[in-house]
């Protein structure tokens, strides 16, 4: 049974990798159309405001570590941060990324540095734009709650591995501006569902790269996700039918 699961999983991984590769390398393909998602519109507005009014965006990458099960959330948060940083690097107050994990904070620094360099604003780069506000879920939340009031933040973007304490960060952010948020943790999603102005629920978090045009691979992987989604649905329904008929 376990071996079977392993092989099926491997097959799924290979299929998905092939799809992502195929789509990303399709040279003539146009950028695919995705359904309208208001949080990303809001993000654009917030970015604009930040650049224009010289206020800060706070990207909360959560307290999850790279070696935790939520690592995918941290990875997508970092990818999104690169885009936000690219746009926001010209702001008087460039975006600030907070994390509760050292490795994620270091990566956030790298991402910010690359974004600044590409915008030729490297001299404005400050390593502490990627920072740890506290370690552990609660420690991180306690620190991140102070980021909005202390750093003139107009928009809080929660993108990463956070649990229910995301509500506290969102609440503090909401006192200063808009809150956009998504996370992988379902409890965190629930918290953001009620507290954020623009919650990203479920896997919508993973769409951020494609909606912000990080690179073609993000759009490709979203397309691959869609294809696999229907394969999953088909296998659920098919398996259920087979089992209902007593064939398995």
């Amino acid at each position: 049974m376990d071996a079977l699961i392993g092989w099926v999983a491997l097959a799924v991984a290979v299929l998905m990798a092939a799809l992502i590769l195929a789509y990303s390398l399709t040279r003539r393909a146009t950028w695919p159309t995705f359904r309208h998602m208001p949080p990303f519109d809001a993000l654009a507005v917030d970015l604009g405001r930040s650049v224009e009014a010289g206020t800060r965006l706070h990207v909360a990458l959560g307290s999850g570590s790279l070696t935790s099960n939520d690592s995918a959330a941290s990875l997508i948060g970092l990818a999104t941060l690169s885009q936000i940083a690219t746009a926001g690097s010209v702001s008087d107050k460039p975006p600030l990324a907070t994390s509760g994990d050292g490795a994620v904070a270091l990566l956030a620094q790298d991402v910010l540095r690359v974004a600044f360099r590409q915008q030729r604003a490297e001299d404005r780069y400050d390593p502490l734009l990627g920072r740890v506000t506290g370690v552990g879920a609660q420690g991180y939340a306690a620190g991140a709650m102070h980021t909005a009031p202390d750093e003139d933040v107009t928009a809080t973007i929660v993108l990463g591995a956070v649990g229910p304490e995301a509500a506290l960060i969102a609440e503090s952010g909401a006192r200063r501006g808009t809150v956009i948020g998504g996370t992988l943790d379902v409890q965190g999603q629930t918290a953001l569902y009620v507290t954020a102005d623009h919650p990203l629920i479920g896997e919508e978090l993973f769409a951020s790269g494609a909606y912000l045009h990080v690179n073609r691979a993000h759009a490709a992987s979203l397309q691959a996700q869609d294809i696999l989604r229907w394969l999953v649905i088909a296998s659920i329904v098919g398996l259920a039918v087979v089992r209902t008929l007593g064939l398995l």
Partner: protein
Amino acid sequence: MRFKASVVVAILTGAIMLLGYFLPGIFFASVRDVMLRSGMIIGTVALLLGVGNLLQVHLRKIREQRPGHLYSIFMVISLFSVFAVVVLFGPAHPYSVWVVSEIQRPLEIGLMGLLAVVLLLAGVRLLFRRQALGTLVFFLTAFLVLLGTAPLPFISLPFLEGLRNWIAQVPAVAGARGIILGVALGATATGLRVLLGFDQPYER
């Protein structure tokens, strides 16, 4: 064409680890074992660097006398004193346990209690903000589940408890499954993007 060592390392590491998930074998097992233990150590060092970063932020605040630097002093002192106690006596020593029980626990639980207030307020605000079918269903469910969780004074309503259990076991599970299946797909895609070298957050 520039050959980046880091990309190769990331892809190789990921590939070996991933294949190890699916293809058991002596070679993979031993290589993976080394990788896992290295990963544990590096992850821990990164954790320490995170604490270093935290200190850096607050020390800078103190040095530049920014508003709120008094709190930072407070934080730095508490950090070092707790570090000293735990390093000297060990994490399970009564002193360390005292620190956790009498300082950390009240604070964390307090924050959690605060969460109750925040969640309730946000729930009420949500009713004002978004009035749609989804919100209505959301609140109806929350009501029923809460009522079913709560013991009622004097009486016991098995019906309510049964309904609550049914909600928690059937439709909520269905929705949650949809979410976690989708999230699994997204996580797979995200991981594979890194393994294919499209995302390189480690690039400096």
